[in-house]
């Protein structure tokens, strides 16, 4: 059973109205358990929309989304996934610890269980000393680490991320990518990760799914094949550059009239 199955899905906004938008058309995607999949594409290609369809924050116009063998809706009600966004969305009035406990509170866990779990998550993201701090006392990278800890607090099998490192500077970004990989390896979580950055998509994922806009569709899939033990050296490996190039070319190939571009490159 796949962790996520998207079958024949399309999403149309404002159907029939003058401002109708075909955000997604004919999407088929299977994500295996424990797999890390990146979604990449230019603005308007529908990658964030696709992520939200998996999260059941919006519903498909046609087609089916299955998570863990259930409908996306049921998966959301059962809290089978955790989600992280570009803004950390932390609650300013709660300590780091209580921010992480938020999903557990909503599920009705009692205090000792919550405390134990949030302590565990803090250790995982290496922020134990900051448990009593307030969000505005932390840097952007640290806030995102807390957001990730929160997303994983209920030990979901699936993690959905919408450009979580987009607001960070390059150095912090690379550091966070390494941390995220480590965390996901340790917990065995399936991840669907939306990004704008080609190196990020390749560094993190087992598979990079390339999308194009107008209307949004999947145009290519690149198997990264860099193995599970990635580190700083990976970024300098030839295979890494090859994959990045492959993704970049797949992306370029998605623009209209790009036959010439292919010639340009040679």
């Amino acid at each position, binding site marked *: 059973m796949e962790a996520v199955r998207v079958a024949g899905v399309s999403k149309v906004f404002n159907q029939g109205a003058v401002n109708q938008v075909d955000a997604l058309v004919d999407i088929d995607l299977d994500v295996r358990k424990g797999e890390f999949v990146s979604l990449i594409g230019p603005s308007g290609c529908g990658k964030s929309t696709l992520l939200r369809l998996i999260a059941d*924050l919006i519903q498909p116009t046609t087609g089916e989304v299955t998570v863990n063998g259930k409908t996306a809706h049921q998966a*959301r*009600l059962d809290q089978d996934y955790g989600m992280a966004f*570009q*803004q950390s*969305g932390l609650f300013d*009035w709660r300590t780091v610890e209580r921010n992480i406990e938020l*999903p557990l*509170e*909503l599920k009705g866990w009692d205090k000792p269980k919550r405390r134990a779990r949030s302590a565990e998550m803090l250790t995982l993201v290496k922020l134990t000393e900051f448990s009593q701090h307030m969000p505005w006392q932390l840097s952007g990278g640290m806030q995102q680490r807390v957001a990730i800890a929160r997303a994983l607090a209920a030990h979901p099998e699936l993690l959905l991320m919408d450009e979580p490192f987009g607001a960070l500077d390059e150095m912090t970004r690379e550091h966070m990518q390494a941390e995220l990989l480590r965390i996901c390896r340790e917990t065995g979580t399936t991840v669907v990760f939306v990004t704008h950055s080609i190196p990020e998509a390749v560094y993190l994922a087992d598979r990079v799914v390339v999308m194009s806009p107008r209307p949004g569709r999947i145009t290519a899939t690149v198997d990264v094949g860099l193995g599970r033990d990635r580190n700083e050296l990976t970024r300098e490996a030839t295979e890494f550059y090859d994959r990045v190039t492959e993704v970049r070319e797949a992306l370029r190939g998605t623009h209209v009239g790009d036959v010439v571009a292919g010639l340009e490159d040679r």
Partner: protein
Amino acid sequence: MKFTARVRSSLAVILPPIVLGVVFIALWQAWVEIKDVQPFVIPKPSAIIDALREDPDLVVKASVVTGVNALVGLVLGSVIGFVAAVLTNRYRLIGDLVNPLAVTVAAVPAVVIVGVLNNMYALDSQIGRRLMVTIAVFFIVFVQVAKGLRHNNPTQMELMDSYAATPRQVLLRVRIPNTMPFLFTAIRTAAPIAVIIALVSEYFGGTQDGLGSKISGTLNGSNKALGFAYVVGGSIVGLLFFAGSSLLEYLVVPWQRRRVHG
């Protein structure tokens, strides 16, 4: 070296207002002395200090009466204003009724409404004044909190959606805490106004034991020095309210600090 530099910069900040204040008071004192201004026109600063020192109890008692009125009104008005704003979020009709009233009440000189209320209440009651303060504070808090409730953090809302949270959970855990900054800023704005209204509401008869009536009584009469002493009392009450509400805001809504001073 660093010490003298720090002293100098601190002095640069503190000295000018002190100098201005001292010069002003000195000129005042001198003018009264030289021109031999009668005390029933305007008292000397020294006479004011004497009046304060002679019987501080008078001023304190009157300050307490007015202060309590202002405080009761401030607390009640804030609570009712907050609840009304939250309800308005759910039931639009309340907002549609209250908003035009808010605009009108803001426009009509408060003094006038006070006169009306005074008429409606018996002579020995402080209720009319407290009601007046409550009404004034209510509108300030209501408008601000209603505004705050309309500000929704989209990321947090999506997050709560992903948790399949009930609307009640969203209200309690996200929307109301997000309005706290607005609430406490409104209270800080309303605090000095509460004092002013409590004072002014005493101009229209009723018991004469609050600051407002004492001030108008003495300033219209001959003992102006005492009147000024009461004014000083009133100023202190106003400052206390402002300091208290600012402190409250600072403590309860600490994450506003970086925004307020940014």
